[in-house]
């Protein structure tokens, strides 16, 4: 009996270690990304832990003299059901407002789903290139849709505890010196 007790205690002591190991380390997502020359990794890049049904804002400065390339990645748990919007705070204009994925998912139509690029003859992950005529602030708004489970829970019992999925959303930024300009 004592041996059994000891084994159970040992087993239960190991469980918390596994649970700790399953929490997300979103910051290390950025390590997985490689810049595309001539662009270099820009350390304004950020990978944050996100929950379904929540909105996240990233405020950053784009400096004149550089050209920025942005791409976005999200954990599969979100099923690409995320809306991306970028506001240029200098002009107060919306410079991007796209879903994570569309039915066709063609170039310029969505943010997360890769598309086939005829020129390169391969699948390409969507990216967006910005040239700041003047230094400006970008507000990147990322709205993660509610999970289906959450909707079910809300409809079945208003006071039921909400179910939310958790994952990482990455804003990957590269830059290069802005040279490619002309009239």
């Amino acid at each position: 009996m004592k041996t059994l007790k000891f084994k159970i205690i040992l087993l239960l002591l190991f469980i918390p270690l596994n649970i700790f190991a399953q929490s997300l380390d979103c910051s290390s997502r950025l390590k997985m990304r490689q810049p595309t020359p001539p662009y270099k990794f820009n350390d304004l890049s950020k990978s944050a832990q996100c929950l379904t049904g929540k909105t996240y804002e990233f405020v950053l400065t784009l400096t004149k003299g550089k050209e920025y390339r942005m791409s976005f990645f999200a954990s599969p748990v979100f099923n690409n059901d995320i809306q991306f919007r970028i506001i240029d705070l200098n002009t107060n204009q919306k410079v991007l407002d796209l879903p994570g994925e569309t039915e066709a998912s063609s170039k310029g139509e969505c943010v997360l789903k890769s598309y086939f690029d005829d020129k390169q003859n391969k699948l390409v992950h969507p990216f967006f290139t910005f040239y700041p005529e003047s230094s400006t602030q970008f507000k990147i708004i990322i709205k993660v849709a509610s999970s289906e489970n959450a909707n079910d829970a809300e409809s079945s019992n208003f006071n039921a505890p909400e179910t939310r999925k958790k994952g990482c959303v990455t804003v990957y930024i590269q830059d290069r010196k802005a040279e490619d300009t002309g009239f």
Partner: protein
Amino acid sequence: MNSLFKIIKTLVFVVISVSIVSCGQGGNDSEDIFDDSTDQGFIKQVESQTYYLIPSPEGLFSFIRDGDLKYVKDILNPTANMDKYIDTRSKELNFGIYSADLAYVSSFNKYQESVDYLNTVRTLSDEIGISAVFDENLIGRIDNIIDDQDSLLKVTSDSYFSIVRYLESTNRSKSLALIVTGGWIESIYVVTNLIDTYQKGSDVVQLLADQKLVVDNLMSYLDQNKSDDNIQRTINDLKNLQKIYDSLVKKETETEKLKPKNPDVIVVGGSSKIVLTKEQFDALKTEIAKIRNKITKNN
């Protein structure tokens, strides 16, 4: 048998409690682990969250590398000052300052100075509990650098970014806020001290003017952590600088617009730019020196 049941019940309760607290902490970085992860209940209802992103010192100095500002070692915080930093706040702020100095010397390919500042940063990292960042891999890369500017820069920027990542993954947002603030202050201090004479409209003056946007972000970022005394003191120390930046105005540019050749490139920012006058530049230079010297002297 009853006592065994009680033990199991207690341990199950402890396990569940610990798992709830651990949400958001660092851990395994395998892609598979979060595909199916769900949090059932217990999550605080916060519907939106804002992240203010502050450029690293290396990011700021990259503009200097492209220009022709000179190397002046005397303006940096001497490594010997490290012994003055006893309290956590001064250690973290000066960690940021030394990180900026490291980025500056490595921008100019100064190998020995880079090693000296890197060692200082490593020693301080130990004292503020982030020495884990300098793992064998990073130390090995540092040891293998021989007068190679790209490698030197890559290693210093990688180490800074590793520190940021480590602090984020361990939820040390207050330490990160102070380190980032120290790094930004030193970067601006160095840049203002490299300008002998104010030249209206020069790239470096414009870079300083554009920091108005960064200051706004920095103050908002600090404000998110203002419940901490060390952060509140830092906010207070930066108030005069913020006032100077608040006085800068935007002006429409008159030059003909340049457009990128690539049609896929989205032009942003509009045609107005922030203007820094000579008087504002002088005030900025004086104020940033005051703030920086207060930190480095640990008064």
